[in-house]
């Protein structure tokens, strides 16, 4: 009764490919969406770890400004040179690491993981397609990503080091730093953006064109919807940043003044430029991408969480339609809220009223999404396996992050909170315990499909408990620091602004606020240690994990109705879809799940 297309699948694959592909073709230049997904996933996880390592160094510097970094300090000096003299972090290095942490996490870790890896692996399977619509474009997209990543990575080692102007790269700062880090950053970004564009075209075309017979729009698993909207965000929001990147590159290399006003006097001298440009133009173009981008970071995560909740409550998702409409509304609205990052650029009342209003409106569909997930739990039969634990933890974590977005969205409150650690805490709650947890959930959930083996439940739970506790220890104190006025991007963690440093001045940071730095540092170290079981689990389970059958979670969606791991071409012939994505515990059915392709 289960999979209609099951047994013949291997035979079917041969029709497509008559010869066994060689090693390079199979693992490096593969055009199979599943291999590309796995390539994306591993590369992105490595970057995620790398981004975190940068941050560990930075957190050390914040807690102990000017003291050599233990363990890695001298290694840094060896490979990076004077910016890490005596194993200490100079402000230049701190700024490089900060900018690159943001860039790497956003563009090289989470987007490739959420969109490139899970999207690639799961979407064609879930819609019953043999592959992406354009397999070779898919490969090119991965290659561009790797190229962009290499360029970003290499930039650490050029004289002066990597970009230092924050992931936001505001001009004129980005143009006035006399090293080539920024140029590398921009060129890297052009590759990454192109990669995402190719991916986005491919995903959207695939979802539109390759849905299996019977897979109507309202039968799509929510994960596919989330990826669909994400694709549009990438497609339409990235090009303006590409344009802006080209313009900033011109400013950096060819002496133009797109973002440089008249009368700029860097280092005391009037800059030798024509002037006439506008620093605000960069900010508009950046945030026109920037805000949709944050939904690119969260929506695939939401999709994963939705799949896992439905599966582990053994119950259909409550309010599927409102989920779909909400995610569409978020996609649409995310293009018209961008200037809420710019309230303090001297924005007038009219425009700020517009952006405050749109920002409040966009929070509503997020509330609806979360509400639907919460209500879906009611009446379920909740299994607490590792993917489910991460998916459940996602909800309150995203809740905290989302809720703290509200004061930021109101200009007058943002007046106090802008560019403080409150903002840092806000968005890390959405992207770190939020999205990263969703990513972990996805890895634990789809790992058996990808490898044919289960990951260890025990070590999964250890990983979960450690990550959950330490994530909160790292980010919770930042709300208080931010509220007290601690500014972000401080190479000394605000020591120069502390009350201790400026006796007699009002508004300095108190000793207790400064003291939280060491709590956060040890939280971050704990977080790092908690990842060890995960990394080992990923590699060891590949060989030694418990073998998984084709549908180990008793799930309904199509990716579980094909052999594990799926052959080239995925299905022997297109499966036909007869029902919605989450038909669990149907009254009268023999089992507590009814696959989508069951007539």
């Amino acid at each position, binding site marked *: 009764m289960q999979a209609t297309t099951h047994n013949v699948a291997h035979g079917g694959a041969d029709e497509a490919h008559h010869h066994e592909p060689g090693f390079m073709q199979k693992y490096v230049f593969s055009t199979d969406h599943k291999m590309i997904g796995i390539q994306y996933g591993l590369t992105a996880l490595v970057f995620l770890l790398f981004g975190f390592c940068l941050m560990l160094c930075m957190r050390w510097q914040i807690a102990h400004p000017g003291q050599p970094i233990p363990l890695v300090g001298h290694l840094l000096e060896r490979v990076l040179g004077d910016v890490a003299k005596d194993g200490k972090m100079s402000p230049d290095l701190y700024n490089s690491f900060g900018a690159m942490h943001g860039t790497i996490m956003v563009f090289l870790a989470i987007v490739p993981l959420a969109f490139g890896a899970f999207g690639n692996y799961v979407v064609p399977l879930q819609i019953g397609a043999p592959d992406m619509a354009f397999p070779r474009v898919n490969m090119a997209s991965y290659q561009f990503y790797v190229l962009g990543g290499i360029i970003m990575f290499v930039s650490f080692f050029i004289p002066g080091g990597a970009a230092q102007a924050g992931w936001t790269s505001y001009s004129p700062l980005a143009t006035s730093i006399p090293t080539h880090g920024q140029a590398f950053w921009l060129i890297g970004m052009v590759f990454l953006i192109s990669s995402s564009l190719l991916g986005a075209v491919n995903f959207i075309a695939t979802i539109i064109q390759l849905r299996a017979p019977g897979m109507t729009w309202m039968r799509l698993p929510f994960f596919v919807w989330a990826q669909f909207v994400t694709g549009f965000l990438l497609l339409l929001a990235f090009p303006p940043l590409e344009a802006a990147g080209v313009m900033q590159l011109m400013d950096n290399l060819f002496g133009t003044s797109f973002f440089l006003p008249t009368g700029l006097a860097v280092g005391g001298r009037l800059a030798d430029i024509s002037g006439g440009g*506008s620093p605000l133009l960069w900010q508009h173009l950046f945030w026109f991408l920037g805000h949709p981008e944050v939904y690119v970071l969260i929506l695939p995560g939401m999709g994963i969480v939705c799949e896992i909740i439905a599966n582990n409550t053994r119950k259909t998702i409550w309010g599927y339609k409102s989920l779909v409409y909400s995610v569409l509304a978020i996609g649409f609205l995310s293009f*018209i809220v961008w200037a809420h990052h710019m309230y303090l650029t001297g924005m007038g009342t009219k425009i700020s009223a517009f952006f405050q209003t749109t920002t409040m409106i966009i929070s509503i569909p997020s509330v609806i999404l979360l509400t639907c997930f919460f209500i879906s739990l009611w009446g379920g039969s909740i299994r607490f396996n590792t993917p489910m634990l991460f998916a459940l933890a996602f909800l309150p974590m995203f809740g905290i992050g989302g809720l703290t977005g509200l004061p930021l969205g109101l200009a007058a409150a943002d007046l106090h909170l802008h560019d403080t650690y409150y903002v840092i805490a806000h968005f890390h709650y959405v992207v770190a315990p939020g999205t990263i947890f969703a990513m972990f959930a996805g890895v634990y959930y789809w790992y058996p499909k990808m490898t044919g083996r289960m990951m260890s439940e025990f070590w999964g739970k250890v990983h979960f408990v450690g990550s959950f506790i330490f994530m909160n220890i790292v980010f919770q104190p930042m709300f208080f620091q931010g509220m007290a006025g601690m500014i972000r991007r401080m190479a000394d963690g605000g020591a120069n602004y502390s009350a201790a440093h400026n006796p007699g001045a009002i508004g300095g940071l108190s000793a207790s606020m400064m003291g939280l730095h060491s709590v956060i540092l040890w939280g971050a170290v704990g977080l790092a240690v908690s990842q060890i079981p995960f990394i080992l689990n990923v590699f060891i389970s590949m060989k030694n994990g418990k073998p998984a059958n084709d549908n180990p979670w008793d799930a309904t969606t199509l990716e579980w109705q094909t052999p594990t791991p799926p052959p080239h071409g995925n299905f022997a012939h297109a499966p036909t879809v007869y029902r919605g994505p989450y038909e669990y515990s149907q009254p009268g059915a023999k089992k507590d799940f009814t696959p989508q392709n069951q007539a």
Partner: protein
Amino acid sequence: MSEHPYDISKHIRGYLIIGGALILGTVLTVLASFIDLGHHWNVVLALVIATVKASLVALYFMHLISEKQLIYTVLGFTAFFFIGLMFITIAAYHDHPALTTTN
């Protein structure tokens, strides 16, 4: 697709006419720029001609006129966001109290 050889041949005349119109439009734009209508109106006129030409290309050469719903939807959103990007940015820019430091 649905077109058969014979109805394609009917299109060909159309393509040539549109092509002629485009070249004519180009000449018109240049001529119009020499007439001094006051800067604003010159800009408006030039953009109107350009828009007409662009529409001809999109509708006929790119067959938009006989294209499917889906493509309109995609292009509709694109146009909306493009206009949003342009106008909101410019509006935001001019809602600022001060634009330059020269007084």
